[in-house]
């Protein structure tokens, strides 16, 4: 296996394009969480309260607890990204998002947008919420808390070396597509 690479906010086009599907990457710095409500809101032309250019969207609904004036993340991890497939490509193009973090991979439109606009899809470890919460250094803010609720809100998180795998790179390669193809061949052998 290749050596773990590092990615820091703000995420440059060059840094993103240097990554290849299958690489392991530690990502640090500011990321924004967003899931079903946020993607629908943005795709329908709703206002975006943060600057997403050269930034990252993390498909994640954290468990957050009030901590004085701020917040503490008790658990956080990726949610299934494929639900955002109808919206993701247009959001990547319109806002200049460089990194999407999630789980399970995404479809053809997102893969094409990653290639066209220089974006990368990173697989975080699904369900490993205690481990991932340790990689969140702090909560810097939150938007849409009342409108979307705590789970769907847009949280501003500063990550400290979150371990991920490049699932889809900026060159049209997808680990998931390879696995799907190979497993389909095996399925045909098994069920005739």
């Amino acid at each position: 296996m290749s050596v773990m690479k590092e990615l820091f906010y703000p995420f440059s086009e060059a840094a993103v394009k240097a990554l290849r599907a299958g690489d392991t990457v530690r990502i640090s710095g500011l990321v924004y969480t967003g899931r079903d409500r946020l993607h629908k809101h943005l795709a329908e032309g709703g206002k975006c309260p943060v600057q997403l250019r050269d930034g990252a969207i993390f498909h994640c609904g954290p468990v957050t607890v009030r901590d004085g004036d701020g917040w503490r993340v008790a658990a956080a991890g990726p949610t299934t990204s494929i639900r955002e497939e109808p919206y993701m490509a247009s959001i990547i193009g319109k806002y200049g998002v460089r990194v999407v973090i999630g789980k399970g991979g995404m479809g053809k439109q997102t893969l094409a947008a990653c290639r066209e606009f220089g974006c990368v899809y990173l697989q975080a470890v699904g369900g490993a919420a205690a481990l991932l919460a340790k990689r969140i250094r702090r909560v810097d803010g939150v938007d849409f808390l009342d409108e979307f609720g705590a789970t769907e809100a847009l949280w501003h998180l500063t990550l400290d070396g979150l371990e991920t795998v490049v699932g889809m790179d900026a060159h049209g390669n997808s680990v998931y597509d390879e696995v799907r193809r190979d497993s389909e061949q095996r399925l045909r052998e098994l069920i005739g």
Partner: protein
Amino acid sequence: MTNWVDILTELVHRTTSDLPRDAEQALATAASAEAAGSRSAMLLEALAENTRLARAQGSPLCQDTGTLTFFFDVPQGYDTLALENAAKTAVAAATANGWLRKNTIDSLSGRSIDDNVADGAPVCHFEQSDRDDVEVWLLQKGGGSENMSRQYSLPDSAIGAGRDLDGVRKCLLDAVWRTQGFGCAPGVLGVCIGADRAEGFLQAKKQLLRPLDDVSDNPQLAELERRVLAEANSLGIGPMGMGGKTTLLGVKVTSRTRLPASFFVTVAYLCWACRHRGILVDANGEPQDLN
């Protein structure tokens, strides 16, 4: 007098944070099967580390703390309404402590119900037993895996599945293939052959309470469980759908009668985080761990 609120709050806390040993052992076995330093080994080791960390901290294993489904077996005449109310109070308390995510949405208004308590939330099922103690099982099943559950109606010409056990086998392999990594593989299949559609989903979900090393008493079903587990793991989908030798940790199958016209195969897909815990509470209110 049994303090049900305290007992059920503790059950929720343990279920959300303390992965049962059977699942932890299955993950360790899966990790040892992968080449050292491989991507799949790295992912499985992260799951193992996460399991230890969540247990030590008493914090959620997974941020999707799931649908909470309680299964109660109670003596004749037991007050089930009081149990249901205690379960609701326990869920609200666990949510306030940060052990459960604010995970309940009003389907019409889209508003978050921040204490996770509503009509039918948590889900409580009651059955009468002939004993004088109360047995309680809690299943916490996240949305990513629930979205991957599905139901087949045989015959299914798309996958060449007829109305027999080989047809069932084809459904199960198809379900695993369709799920890929979307349900946080390696997962567990709970399966019901037969029944009507609604009962099929309930019985399939109940299969997810069985320990991972449990084998069906029925030799035909035991063979089906063994074969589907081996064949599914030969698909190469692997942890998180990124390739690897372990795609499933277990296959648990039951059967029910069916109507002559119907032949449903219902698959409840559970992620690697097998959050199922049981307790037996005696007449003095003393709980005993069943995992």
